[in-house]
């Protein structure tokens, strides 16, 4: 129960932060969604770093992982905005916008995640080099 409350509160906070970034970087359909690119790159780096640090510490409570991972960062980042933005850009004939929205999400977002994992495991603590985090996916 505590985990679900943490995810709900974290989800509200993450959504509020994303809403804030959206308001700071308004854009029309003819421009790339820099707001979405920013939240996804920052959020993927942060989650990658957490999985390499806090997540593998046995003392980290499950509700904190759930609240920060599934809650705050899960809601701060978004996939539907990438899909919708790309789809709208294609349908309105702005293919260069679609390529930037989709391509940057793919390349920068995935690179940010691997960089976050690398920075987390190499520079903060590294109890098991190459630690597998997938089996803890429940708490992500």
């Amino acid at each position: 129960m505590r985990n679900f409350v943490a995810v709900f509160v974290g989800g509200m906070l993450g959504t509020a932060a994303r809403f804030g970034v959206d308001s700071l970087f308004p854009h029309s359909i003819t421009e790339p969604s820099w707001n979405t690119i920013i939240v996804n790159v920052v959020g993927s780096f942060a989650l990658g770093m957490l999985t390499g640090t806090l997540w593998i510490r046995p003392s980290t409570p499950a509700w904190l992982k759930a609240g920060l991972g599934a809650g705050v960062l899960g809601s701060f980042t978004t996939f539907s905005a990438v899909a919708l933005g790309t789809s709208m850009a294609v349908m309105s004939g702005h293919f260069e916008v679609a390529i930037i929205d989709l391509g940057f999400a793919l390349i920068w977002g995935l690179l940010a995640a691997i960089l976050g994992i690398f920075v987390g495991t190499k520079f903060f603590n590294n109890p098991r080099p190459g630690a597998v985090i997938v089996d803890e996916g429940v708490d992500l």
Partner: protein
Amino acid sequence: MNPWLTFACVLVAGGVGAVARYSLQRALPEKGTGIPRAVLIVNMFGSLLAGATAGAMVDGKLDTAFGVIVITGLCGGLTTFSTFAVETMELFRVDAWKSGYLNILITFVGGVGLATVGFVLTRAVL
């Protein structure tokens, strides 16, 4: 709608979306080398719903505030990019290359496709 009330509804919808995603992640735990199903499902469903809602908003048929609550709040909170990115990178790290590449391909092609289908459908029906 009062902008502060809209904002509050967006936050609550985001929290509800996050809880729905977390519940599915717990119901469908990942096995390690397969495609992460829970995140794929929420991302596909959220893209379809966002597209359908955007299609309904064309020409003001659906109230803008309600559309923002569903698209930015519910769909934004339900879908996630960070977990998709980290899970995909973890697949590559454990040498599950096929699952990793397939996850990227299905997520992007499926998500953009479903958003388009949702948009076209509600626009045609409404």
